[in-house]
């Protein structure tokens, strides 16, 4: 029986977000300032992680881990045989799925525009004059 619980922003989501403030050429990856971070165990699904790896920007994930204070947990590159490398898949699973940011902010790497994370939800909405 799985427990029901409120999930906060995970690094899998951070990996997918880009700042689109007017005039920005490269709004990716967003910088993370985490005020409140927690780790929460999630069932390991190797098939899912393996599929997901092809959609992940790996350098952005390793950088995100550093920014939340989890250093040296990930290899710098995805191994060639990642699909069968269970140890690697578990590390990737942990980074993508089990680290949650409850509060803090994401900021645009070019303009520094801050996007708040409140109650575990990132707010990427822009004001009219920023679009």
């Amino acid at each position: 029986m799985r427990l029901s619980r409120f999930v906060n922003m995970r690094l899998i989501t951070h990996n997918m977000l880009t700042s689109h403030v007017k005039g920005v050429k490269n709004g990716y990856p967003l910088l993370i300032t985490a005020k409140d971070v927690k780790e929460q165990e999630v069932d390991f699904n190797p098939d899912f992680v393996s599929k997901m790896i092809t959609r992940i920007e790996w350098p952005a994930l390793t950088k995100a881990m550093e920014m939340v204070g989890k250093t040296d947990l990930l290899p710098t590159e995805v191994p060639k045989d990642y699909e069968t490398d269970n140890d690697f898949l578990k590390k990737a699973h942990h980074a993508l799925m089990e680290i949650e940011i409850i509060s803090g902010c994401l900021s645009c790497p070019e303009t520094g525009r801050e996007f708040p994370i409140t109650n575990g939800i990132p707010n990427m909405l822009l004001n009219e004059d920023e679009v």
Partner: protein
Amino acid sequence: FAWLRHFKKSMEIPTPIYNHVSNYDVYEPAEDTFLLLDALEKEQDYLKALRPTIALEVGCGSGVVSAFLATILGDSTAYFCTDRNQSAASCCVETSAANHVTINPVLTDLSTSFLPRFEHSVDVLIFNPPYVVTPPHEVEVNGITASWAGGVDGRQVMNRFFKQVPNLLSNRGVLYLVVIRENKPDEIREIFNEMGFLCEVVMTRRSGPEFLMILKFVRK
């Protein structure tokens, strides 16, 4: 018998738990929502065979549609959703928890902050847009009106979304879209035809004055 309207017609896969929704300032699941759930249930074999990696629901509101999709497809898919309404995103988190699934909400306009990362990456895309025909100025105001006010032909928000679809969908990706007859579905079909998509009507239902349709789009 008004309560009958508030359930899916088909009950093979249970309606997600949503009794917490009234605590939030969010569009409550209604006939359009339930038709979409029934359509997804009808499509479940097709959806499972897709083995989707990424699902995205734009304008998720309470999050019951994504919760339902996650119940069908399980934890081999990552579920993301967007809304402009803070209350909707919070409600979505509670809906996920109540239904033992995980949906990742982001506050953004349509799919904007997921681009370009979701370029040709979304395997299942869902949009139940603000489709009600209203005066143009009622669109995109803040609050609950934004969840239904669609402006001219009920198409003002939809039309902006349509431009993002070719960027979002993966090669075998599928879009499910809720429309009413006033949205001119034939014209929508033609817009997608020109962008290289096939259109199919998955389900229709009359609900009071609304003739609701669930349209499905895939690449040719």
